[in-house]
């Protein structure tokens, strides 16, 4: 039978019982003579239900307030205590006897009331009670016990001396008794029953205990879960604190629960305090002192500080009798093996924190620590992201501009932001003076410090420049190197400073400094962050400098280029001016006989446009022209220098143009031929002039030969026929010879005079001459000639001087020729008149007029121009002495002096020659 019973190994008791209840074998029932099967079943079921409820109910029971307990637990029963209730002392003694030798401790009550009281206070596992008692009987006791939460789980065995009907038994069982024992006891049976109930109850108690533990654990877990949820659902440390503190406060029901969190970046303790009355506060405690050990702060100072705060804020926290708050517990909050804070619990009661909730607190502390740490990490991550963004910004900004000033300003601003500094400074080494110049600054007082110069040996900045160290000052008042000029200049007092060198291609060109008025503001992270900022700056500064240099250089280059261009332009213009002003045509060919350049005259002479032909060879189109052929030929000519003469048909078919071509090879410094220069000169007029000269010369020779031929002939005649010739005839011949000789002499002189006129420079040997005096002289000289012919020579001499600026000998010759001519051609008894007048016109320039009038035969109008030709003779028979050059000379002299020559003459009316010459002004023109 025993082996048909299910073995309750790992199954919960209630299940076992339940199964038992459903499948209790009938034999078992038989074994229990006093108990009906249905009853047993009911008992078992009941027991099972109870147990099940205990087990499940513990999990869902909400936390209850209450002193020392917020967890749903029934108070555990004393597993070793049995209460015996009987009004008969002997029965008690008997039972006591039964239990002798066991480790059960007994408690006794003689009546139901006493039993109740003892049951409540001692909480025995089992009560063995007589039914028949005065006052409250066993049943009453049973009822009372079962209605009391505290005692309802106590096992009860009812003892009766009398056999009771099963109805009574059922009643008792229904009321909740666990068993019946009849008196008299059979020890074994008694003990067995007791043990059975004990076992049951103990198991129940154990189950309950386990359930309680489970429930409690579940509640703890729930609480922790909720805490964790609440704490992790917020990223605000303050919220975390608040929710944590509230939960802790409710959990512990301590007078004050404080959360202390260390913020090393800000060097503060964040303190949140809550009291169960609902008051709470947050505080931030600055840690002014230099901290050596974070742990110490928490361990040593947190509590004190919290206490201080609590005491200060007792009203808010709803606390009284603060001085009696003695119990202080501290639960450390550890994250990643580092102490980051603590939960401080203050209460009157020492046992507010005890074994039961200590683990919970530690777990809670862990959760909060994790959450706080997460928040901090998140903050850090945010900060890091911010930093990265800032860095990116810096990077982008720095590379988007090459304006050095812009870069520096942006840098210090961004650095200030990223490093969370109050003031950022950028100093650069001035290579010229070897001083550190404060180039850019941001923050309060930045305008006041910008431009400050300090020697590179001074201060922390100097130190960093020299060593290239990344320097972190946590308290400037304790740093010997600190040179507090910034404070002096701007009034800003810094306590923390971060100094990093700015490097460009390995060379330290300056430093960047971040300042803050708090101590210990910056940390290693900031140093690391500063690194990239500074390197960006370094690169950017170098870039900007290079760009600046390049710009300067560019400007210089541009300036040079424009200068040079201007020079070249001027040179080119000069060259072109020269080319343009050349009267000759110029064509330049390059080494490949392509036209390089030509001047305007060339374009006209060769009838082409340079713009069309530049860079090309002479084409077949051009070679039609003889001039082009000549040019082409010359350009191909190997000789260094070559000339050619070309006759080119011109507008007048009978008079071609004569062009002289001259070519020269151009060589560079090495001696290579780089081109040919060809000049074309129109020498038509030159040729014409030469022809004229030739004609003149032949005219001259002819003229010279004429008297000579007479001389030769007549002299020959004289020699040949002198005896046969009468002396009269001989004289005649001799005279003729002499006359001709004189004529020859005159001719030679005139020719010489004319050639001198031709060759003289216009204004050479001119001087101020008094015309009146000159005319006077000439007249005086020629007067005998006039008198010899009985010609009246009249000289209308004006008063005063008439100054002209002339070539004296030429004007003298002119006057002589005119007057001499007049005398020569005026017949005997005639009149020659000479006048000199000063002519004033409306213009400033004044002229002088020379008039020579004669009463000779006159000159027909058609000969008025010819008269001035060379060798022109009115009398072709040469009877009258005259070279034919006199008037030609007059004309040339007048032209040379920029004067004018007029002739008024008609046959039979004599002739008047009029000459106007410009008067001299005082400047000598």
């Amino acid at each position: 039978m025993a082996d048909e019973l299910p073995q309750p190994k790992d199954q919960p008791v209630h299940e076992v019982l339940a199964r038992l209840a459903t499948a209790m074998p009938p034999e078992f029932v038989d074994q229990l003579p006093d108990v009906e099967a249905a009853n047993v079943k009911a008992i078992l079921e009941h027991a099972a239900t109870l147990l099940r409820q205990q087990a499940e109910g513990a999990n869902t029971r909400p936390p209850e307030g209450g002193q020392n307990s917020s967890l749903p637990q029934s108070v555990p029963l004393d597993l070793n205590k049995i209460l015996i209730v009987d009004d008969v002392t002997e029965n008690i003694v008997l039972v006591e006897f039964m239990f002798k030798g066991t480790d059960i401790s007994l408690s006794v009550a003689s009546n139901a009331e006493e039993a109740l009281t003892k049951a409540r206070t001692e909480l025995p596992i089992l009560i063995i009670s007589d039914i028949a008692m005065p006052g409250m009987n066993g049943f009453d006791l049973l009822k009372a016990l079962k209605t009391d939460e505290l005692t309802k789980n106590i096992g009860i065995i009812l003892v009766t001396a009398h056999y009771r009907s099963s109805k009574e038994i059922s009643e008792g069982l229904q009321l909740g008794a666990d068993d019946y024992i009849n008196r008299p006891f059979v020890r074994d049976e008694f003990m067995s029953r007791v043990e059975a109930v004990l076992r049951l109850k103990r198991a129940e108690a154990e189950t309950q205990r386990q359930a309680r533990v489970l429930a409690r654990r579940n509640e703890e877990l729930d609480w922790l879960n909720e805490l964790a949820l609440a704490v992790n659902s917020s990223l605000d440390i303050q919220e975390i604190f608040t929710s944590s503190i509230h939960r802790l406060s409710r959990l512990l029901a301590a007078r004050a629960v404080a959360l202390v969190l260390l913020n090393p970046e800000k060097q503060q303790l964040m303190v949140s305090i809550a009291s169960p009355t609902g008051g709470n506060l947050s505080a931030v405690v600055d840690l002014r002192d230099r901290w050596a050990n974070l742990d110490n702060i928490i361990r040593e100072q947190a509590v004190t500080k919290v206490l201080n705060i609590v005491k200060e804020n007792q009203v808010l926290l709803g606390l009284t009798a603060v001085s009696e708050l003695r119990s202080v517990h501290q639960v450390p909050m550890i994250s990643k093996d580092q102490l980051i804070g603590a939960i401080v619990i203050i209460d009157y009661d020492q046992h507010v924190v005890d074994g039961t909730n200590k683990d919970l607190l530690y777990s809670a502390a862990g959760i909060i620590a994790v959450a706080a740490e997460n928040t901090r990490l998140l903050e850090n991550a945010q900060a890091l992201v911010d930093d990265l963004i800032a860095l990116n910004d810096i990077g982008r900004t720095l590379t988007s501009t090459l304006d050095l000033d812009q870069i520096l300003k942006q840098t210090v601003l961004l650095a200030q932001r990223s490093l969370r500094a109050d003031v950022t400074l950028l100093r650069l080494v001035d290579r010229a003076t070897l001083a550190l110049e404060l180039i850019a600054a941001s923050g309060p007082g930045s305008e006041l410090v910008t431009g400050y110069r300090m020697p590179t040996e001074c201060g922390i900045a100097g130190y960093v420049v020299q060593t290239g160290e990344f320097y972190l000052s946590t308290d400037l008042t304790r740093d010997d190197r600190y040179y507090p000029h910034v404070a002096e200049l701007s009034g800003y007092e810094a306590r923390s400073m971060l100094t990093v060198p700015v490097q460009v291609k390995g060379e330290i060109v300056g430093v960047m400094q971040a300042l803050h008025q708090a101590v210990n503001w910056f940390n290693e992270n900031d140093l690391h962050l500063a690194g990239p900022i500074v390197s960006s700056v370094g690169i950017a500064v170098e870039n900007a400098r290079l760009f600046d240099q390049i710009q300067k250089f560019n400007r210089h280059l541009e300036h040079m280029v424009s200068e040079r261009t201007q020079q070249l332009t001027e040179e080119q213009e000069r060259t072109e001016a020269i080319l343009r002003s050349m009267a000759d045509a110029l064509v330049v060919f390059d080494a490949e006989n392509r036209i390089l350049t030509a001047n305007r005259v060339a374009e006209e002479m060769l009838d082409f446009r340079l713009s069309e032909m530049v860079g090309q060879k002479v084409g077949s189109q051009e070679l039609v022209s003889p001039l082009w052929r000549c040019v082409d030929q010359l350009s191909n000519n190997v000789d260094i220098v070559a000339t050619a003469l070309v006759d080119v048909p011109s507008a007048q078919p009978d008079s071609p143009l004569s062009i002289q071509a001259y070519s020269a090879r151009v060589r560079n410094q090495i001696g290579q031929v780089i081109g040919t220069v060809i000049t074309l000169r129109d020498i038509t007029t030159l040729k014409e002039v030469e022809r004229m000269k030739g004609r003149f010369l032949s005219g001259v020779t002819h003229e010279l030969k004429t008297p000579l031929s007479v001389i030769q002939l007549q002299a020959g005649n004289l020699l040949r026929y002198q005896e046969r010739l009468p002396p009269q005839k001989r004289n005649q011949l001799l005279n003729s010879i002499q006359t001709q000789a004189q004529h020859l002499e005159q001719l030679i002189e005139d020719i010489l005079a004319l050639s001198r006129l031709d060759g003289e420079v216009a204004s050479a040997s001119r001087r101020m001459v008094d015309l009146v005096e000159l005319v006077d002289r000439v007249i005086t000289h020629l007067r005998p000639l006039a008198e010899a012919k009985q010609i009246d020579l009249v000289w209308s001499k004006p008063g005063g001087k008439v100054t002209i600026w002339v070539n004296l000998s030429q004007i003298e010759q002119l006057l002589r020729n005119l007057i001499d001519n007049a005398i020569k051609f005026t017949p005997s008894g005639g009149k020659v008149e000479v006048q000199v007048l000063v002519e004033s016109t409306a213009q400033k320039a004044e002229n002088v007029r020379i008039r020579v009038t004669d009463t000779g035969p006159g000159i027909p109008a058609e000969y008025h121009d010819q008269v001035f030709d060379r060798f022109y003779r009115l009398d072709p028979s040469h009877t009258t002495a005259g070279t034919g050059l006199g008037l030609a000379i007059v004309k040339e002299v007048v032209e040379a002096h920029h004067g004018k020559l007029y002739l008024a003459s008609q046959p039979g009316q004599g002739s008047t020659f009029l000459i106007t010459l410009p008067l001299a002004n005082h400047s000598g023109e």
Partner: protein
Amino acid sequence: MDSTEQTNQKPSPLILVVDDNLEFLSGVELTLSMEGYQVWTATNGQDALYKLRAAFQGKEEEGANLDRLPDLILADIMMPLMDGHNFYERVVANPYLNHIPFIFLTAKSSPEDIRYGKELGADDYLTKPFSPEDLLASIRGKLRRVEQRRTLTSQLFGDSSKSGGVVLLIVILAALIIAVLGGLYLFL
């Protein structure tokens, strides 16, 4: 044929001198007359032609021996109104004057001038200045030939007045011969 004229008379040669320089002209006239020549003078080509025309047209002209033409012409080149070259060409173009020897007397002495003159066909070219001897040397030879020709032709044809008729006769004969020859050619 009147041979009495020829045998009785041997007139001195007549020389026409044309030059615009009066002094020179008188000098040459002196030289020639001293040598026994007869001299006509003119100061330019136009003037000279007048005289010549008058001579062969049988007109009275002042200062000219009207019944004869000059035996020799001396002419300067550089003259007004009509220069020597033109005068020459006019002379040789004239059948009556063509036979008269022509000598240029001129100061134009360049080789080109001389060549030009010779090409024209002048008989001689004298460049001034020259001495009387030079002049006489030039003209004597020419005059001798003139004389010879006159002698020969007068022997042949009588007086010179017939020379023109002789020429005509020769021309007619030549024409007849050509006609006959031509007719013969056509026949053959």
